[in-house]
């Protein structure tokens, strides 16, 4: 061919720009997505505030103050003069405080169960896709069977059944104390409930990730570099962890963010309906359920109780959108 590639004719020093790593590219592309960046900042703020709750607010999580019930937002306490930024609920508990703690619990449950569901899905998906044969058959059949169940109904039933005899499944003490530390609950029973809800959600919602991962692995497996790695004597474990996993990974990030939002909303709906985590422990869902029962006398309560879940949900979705665009090489930004 007479024509040469344009890059070949460039002077050397110009081509010698240091190559950007894959993740740096993704980050750069992500930063271009304005809504996603705003959402990321909002999310970081919500997370930090939730986990610094005891230092931010002077009120206790469950401190009942019957002289200050249904206090409007931006009104000081009638006795101590401390500001109730978002008002108080039907027992005089400070809304701002409870929303912070609720965020701590709701976000932890959502994050941990999504993380576990994703890990289960990842491992099973990689195994099924890589080995094929009877492993694939077994995993795919299990997956289809789990997916046959109407998940929301099963989740309602399982949570009801397990929470009423929470001693059915023994939970190791160190997990309980870890959960108590991270969600700032004081009683062991509360931690038990939180762990059970998390585990049940994780065990039911891994099928999507597994299916996605299996598909990705099936396409990556046929690439020449996998064959060369095998030919060079790489073990199955090495090929899976060093070559297949990193190459099949990017879509999982998007899947994770969307799954996180799904599970956050799911857990809120669950406690909104009166299942799952119950009242003295605040969650965004059960606080909204209480607000609903006082809706006619105090309409502002629903707005106050509902806004955090709305903002978080929107922010996570926008972030997922931004990540999808940033990770898709075909997308021009």
């Amino acid at each position, binding site marked *: 061919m007479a024509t040469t590639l344009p890059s070949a004719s460039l002077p050397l020093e110009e081509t010698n720009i240091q190559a950007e790593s894959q993740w740096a590219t993704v980050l750069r592309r992500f930063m271009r997505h304005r809504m996603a960046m705003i959402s990321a900042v909002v999310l970081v703020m919500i997370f930090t505030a939730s986990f610094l709750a005891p230092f931010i607010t002077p009120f206790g999580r469950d401190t009942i103050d019957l002289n200050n019930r249904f206090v409007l937002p931006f009104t000081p306490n009638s006795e101590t003069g401390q500001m109730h930024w978002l008002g108080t609920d039907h027992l005089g508990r400070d809304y701002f405080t409870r929303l912070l703690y609720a965020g701590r619990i709701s976000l932890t449950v959502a994050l941990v169960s999504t993380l576990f569901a994703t890990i289960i899905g990842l491992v099973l998906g990689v195994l099924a896709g890589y080995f094929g044969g009877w492993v694939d058959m077994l995993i795919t059949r299990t997956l289809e*069977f789990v997916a*046959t*169940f*109407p998940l*929301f*109904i*099963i989740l*309602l*039933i*399982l949570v*009801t*059944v397990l929470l*009423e*005899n929470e001693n*059915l499944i023994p939970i190791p003490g160190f997990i309980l104390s870890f959960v108590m530390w991270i969600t700032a609950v004081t009683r062991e029973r509360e931690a038990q409930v939180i762990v059970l809800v998390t585990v049940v959600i994780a065990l039911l919602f891994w099928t999507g990730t597994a299916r996605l991962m299996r598909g990705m692995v099936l396409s990556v497996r046929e690439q020449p570099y996998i064959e060369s790695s095998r030919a060079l004597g790489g073990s199955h474990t090495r090929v899976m962890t060093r070559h297949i996993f990193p190459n099949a990974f990017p879509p999982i990030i998007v899947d994770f963010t969307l799954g996180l*939002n799904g599970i956050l*909303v799911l857990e*809120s*709906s669950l406690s*909104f*309906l*009166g*299942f799952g985590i119950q009242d003295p422990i605040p969650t965004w*869902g059960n606080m*909204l359920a209480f*607000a*609903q029962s006082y*809706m*006619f006398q105090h*309409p502002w309560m*629903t*707005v106050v109780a*509902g806004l955090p*879940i*709305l903002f978080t*949900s*929107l922010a*996570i*979705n926008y972030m997922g*959108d931004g990540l999808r665009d940033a990770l898709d090489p075909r997308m021009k930004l």
Partner: protein
Amino acid sequence: MTNFLIRRLFQMFIVIVLASMVSYGLLYIAPGGPLLGLQQQQQGGANRITEADIARIKARFELDLYMPVRFTRWFIGFPKEPITIGDQVFFADLQVGCATTQTVRLRYPDGRVEFAEICATPVTLADLEGRRSSNGILFGDFGLSQVILRDRPISTLIWSRLPYTIALMGISTLITLMIAIPLGVYSAVRQYSPFDTAATTVSFIGTSLPTFFFGLMLILVFAVLAKNAGLPYLPPGGATANRDYIIPFFGLFELTVQAGSFLDRVLHFILPCLVLTFVSVAAWSRFIRSSMLEVLRQDYVRTARAKGVKERLVILKHAFRNALIPFITLVAGILPALVAGAAITESVFNWPGLGRLLVDALNRSDYTVALALLYVTLVLQLVGYLISDILYTVADPRIRLS
């Protein structure tokens, strides 16, 4: 096709049996049975329940039968009594359960002592005669409700709630289809136009909005605030009102709505229907848009345009028909969504449908009702899969079922 149908129906049957086993086992560990409440009462004093009472109650709820026997009696209504062939009675003495247990001390020759539970009064197949039992859920007999409608058949309960759910889901799905399809197609055809951007943003918000929050906000605005402000308002929940109410129209005239009238029902219907419609329009229009974009890139669309087919025809006939194929999966999903698909919306608006029945049943430990609803959903889901598979062959001749 026949071959395929036979195989699929057989597979469906296997899955139903397995899934029923799992769901029955799930509720078997459920607490809050009739004995629990009675034992708590017993500690009160005066009306102590005796051993005989416990045995009677156990027999009534079949708690004295072994798990597999209970399962088959619930699932296919078998065994009901000993098998009689001619005058001969078989298996009359077969032990199927245990009414009372006894703890005995076992002393081994080497000195170890162990306590073991043995059956003091066994229940045999002959004892089952005369007990009431369902004909099996597989044959459509769901058994009796225990709490919500005490001792009335669950099917009565389900039939009384079904019209509400079908009305809500049916009408909202119809409206959704009428809005989402044109919206999705138009967005795809005018990709990146201001209209597309606006539609995408709105549907994006719609899909990430928690349903219950959206429902509550609608109640807040259209029922609570509007009523407080003296504007025309909508009823906040339920399917009908208990007494007549008056809706003001800006002081011009007043509308008296009779409780239970058609107008009353329509007014109660608007808000829940709006929530369901908005949420599904958001999801479905995005789905149709992306599927349409995919098809519009295909070679045959370019060929059609190159032939000089009118743009309208290209979009409607060449592209749209093919874009609908993945849509079939979504439509088949409507069927299982009948039960719990609107559970949250129904609960927010206090709408007496199947979804709220499920929530009520679980809240009040009426596990037989919950189990029946779970079972119905399972079957509907499998039927939905089957229908979508068949629809695929109709829509796309390249797919062959074999």
